[in-house]
């Protein structure tokens, strides 16, 4: 029967192409607006490394100003970065299965085969960064704990940097100059562009990943400042880099991998113990306010999905609602107009349910057509937005991707919406007694 209803629907469309086109277009417009806003929402809301969501955590401790909370809008938030001393202090814990501390620096890289000297961004971090965030390696691998401790002058290159410096060849063992110092390549990453850049959202959720990775202790040796965020609340006499390291300025980020709930509790206790101990030394004037965020919580705390994203999504769905109300009205008008024919079918033996399903199928076909048209329109819209804004916003491939998942969702929403929209009109047309349509036409 379904195939029969499909055929009848198509004939009905052919009889009234203008009205059909209007209905499809109404749904398509609503769906396309939803699709564009959904695309940017989903890109921001994507949870990277979902299988590790109960394993990776970012600790926050509140070393901030007793007079003012760190976050004026949400006083319960602790600072998202740590001081050098606290980063080292947290790193000292033996509880985590893996751990890292890091900051973002920059400097001129030179010495590659064909490469003109270039200012590159560097992630100063520990060797566990790579297994923790599951970075893919093209050549070589991460450095080990011994290299961290040394520190050994080793470096991991991004694929693009390796391309520029060594033409993409296996450069493990070769050396480069960074800040005029020799570093030996131990690994080259494969293409890796996590979006959102969850581990450094305070700088930019969709920023480029760094171009090289260096053991964090070199930052101290080479006295590198942070190219990322640095925040200080306390009046301190900072005359040297050493003073800076000892200050209350926050510029480090920490992550830990805890593979069991027991370890999570143990680490939480460790955080509390650490802060209490620091308080006894005169630091941490604010009340105890430690947090341990998993990736999802971290992204929420940092509002990766911004209020604009959410507001636009709401608007889009409100608009879709208007489109649907419109469609219900059009369907009602169309079906009631065709009521005499339905009356004849009833006389010929169709039950109310047959008429209902026939017309619901028709609504469904319109809905699917509208959904596909809307999805394609949405893809075109995303493409157009990328082309327009891409002239001055750098990261749009990641924040406005061509998202086939969203396309499928859009068609699904449309089908559901169209069927809901068609329920009342299809029911209405089945309800009238067939006799009333047969004599008086």
């Amino acid at each position, binding site marked *: 029967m379904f195939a029969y209803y499909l055929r009848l629907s198509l004939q009905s469309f052919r009889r009234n192409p203008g009205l059909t086109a*209007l209905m499809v277009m*109404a749904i398509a*417009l609503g769906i396309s*607006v939803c699709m*564009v*806003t959904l695309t940017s929402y989903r890109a921001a809301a994507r949870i990277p490394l979902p299988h590790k969501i109960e394993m990776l955590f970012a600790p926050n401790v509140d070393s901030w100003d007793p007079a003012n909370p760190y976050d004026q809008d949400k006083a319960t938030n602790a600072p998202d970065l740590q001081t050098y001393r606290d980063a080292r202090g947290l790193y000292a814990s033996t509880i985590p299965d893996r751990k890292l501390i890091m900051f973002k620096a*920059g*400097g*001129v890289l*030179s010495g590659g085969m064909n490469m*003109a*000297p*270039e*200012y590159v961004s560097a992630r100063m971090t520990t060797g566990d960064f790579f297994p923790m965030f599951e970075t893919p390696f093209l050549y070589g691998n991460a450095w080990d704990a011994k290299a961290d401790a040394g520190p050994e002058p080793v470096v991991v290159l991004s694929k693009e940097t390796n391309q520029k410096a060594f033409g993409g060849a296996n450069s493990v063992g070769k050396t480069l100059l960074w*800040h*005029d110092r020799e570093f030996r390549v131990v690994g080259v990453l494969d293409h890796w562009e996590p979006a959102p850049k969850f581990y450094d959202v305070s700088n930019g959720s969709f920023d480029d990943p760094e171009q090289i990775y260096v053991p964090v202790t070199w930052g101290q040796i080479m006295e590198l*400042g942070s190219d990322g965020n640095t925040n200080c609340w306390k*009046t301190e*006499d*900072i*005359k040297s880099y050493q003073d800076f390291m000892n200050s209350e300025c926050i510029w480090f980020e920490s992550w830990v991998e805890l593979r069991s709930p027991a370890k999570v509790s143990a680490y939480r206790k460790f955080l509390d113990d650490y802060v209490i101990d620091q308080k006894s030394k005169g630091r941490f004037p604010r009340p105890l306010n430690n947090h341990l965020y998993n990736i999802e919580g971290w992204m929420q705390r940092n509002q990766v999905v*911004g*209020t*604009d994203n*959410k*507001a*636009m999504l*709401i*608007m*889009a769905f*409100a*608009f879709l*609602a*208007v*489109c649907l*109300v*419109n469609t*219900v*009205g*059009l369907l*009602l*008008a169309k079906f*009631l*107009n065709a009521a005499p024919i339905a009356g004849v079918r009833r006389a010929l033996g169709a039950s109310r349910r047959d008429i209902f399903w026939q017309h619901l199928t028709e609504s469904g076909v319109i809905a699917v057509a509208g959904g596909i048209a809307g999805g394609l329109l949405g893809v075109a819209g995303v493409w157009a*937005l990328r082309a327009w*804004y891409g*002239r*001055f*916003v*750098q990261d749009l491939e990641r924040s406005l991707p061509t998202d086939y998942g969203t396309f499928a969702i859009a068609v699904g929403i449309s089908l559901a919406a169209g069927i809901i929209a068609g329920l*009342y009109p299809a029911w*209405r047309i089945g309800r009238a007694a067939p006799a009333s349509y047969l004599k*008086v*036409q």
Partner: protein
Amino acid sequence: MGLRPIFSSLMRNGAGALLVAIQIALTLAIVVNAVFVTKQRVSHIGRPSGLDDQNQFALPVTGFEKDFDFFAMIRADMAMLRQMPGIVDAAPINQIPLSGGGSSTQFYSLPDKKGEKSPVAYYGTDEHAVKTLGVKLDDGKNFTATDVDYRPKDAQGFPGTAVVTRVFAEALFPKEKDNLVGKTFYDDQSKPVVIAGIMEQMHGAWVGWDKVDRVMLTPVVGPGPGIRYLVRTEPGKLDAMMAAVEVALRKRDPNRVVGKLRSVQNFKQSSYASDSLMAVTLAVVTGLVLTFSALGIFGLATFNVNTRTRQIGTRRAVGARKRDIVSYFMAENWMVTTLGVVVGCGLALAGGYWLSNQFGLPRLDLYFLVGGVAGLWVLGQLAAWQPALRAAKVSPAMATRSV
């Protein structure tokens, strides 16, 4: 004219009318809020930045060899840039206004962190900054070449003189608005800075910050090895000069890194991108929603007329004039529109309230609501006008025709 019979007839054939009322209600709610937010964003984007931001570009430069003479590089680059035809002026600067990246700190009107306080975005630069930025000094004067501290090492504290925006100065000295030049403010170490000049207006790094217009130009450059250059061109020469400057800088000294050139306009558009996107999306949605509502009303009115030709004919046959028919349908439409508008008002207010609570958007201005109600009413009546006219043309003979 008897609205009650119209009302009871509407009640009996309610579904279509109800749908239109719902559509009008939703339209009002959406359009009022969307237009309001759009206007907000457009004003936000349209604020004057105080800079000549259509004619400026910036680039980072870094030296890298050991014993690289950073200041010599700056002197040589600046000398070359400043005499290139087409360039108004150029200055070394730590960060670029409107770019989203910058530094800020807190100052006090009295030592020991006492008195009034205000945060400010600061730009370490030389005496050419005022002309390069294109800001207007409406009191006092710029700092001089001798004021500029070319710092070889990262020292703390600011030089003792600065050029600041009026808003920042007034925040520190609210009672002395006519007498700001020469006033002294203090950092958190009680180190003093004297106001040499007042800028009428200038925007700093973060356009989303409510204190974006609190800016300080401070005469300090260094310690390197990297710095940014801000260049101001004559009107119409931006693209040409960007290309020429890149070539000239690389040629003058190939042993340092000349980074990516980017216009200040580009930075500005990037900073305002999300506001712009929001405004565009809302404008598109508003236009579409209004179109749909008009079409929906038109469609229902037409449908109404088509299904009731016998009724119309009968009315005419018993004495109604053409304009009685028109007023009947317009009255019917008016009832539906009114119902929709009333419900829509409630929805618009509720929606505006919820949006401002959830998302920190400002509270809906009632002007917009009134405008929306009036506009939608007019739209509703206009859309039903043509179908009503068609109804009037129905022949009285329709009363007797049976098919």
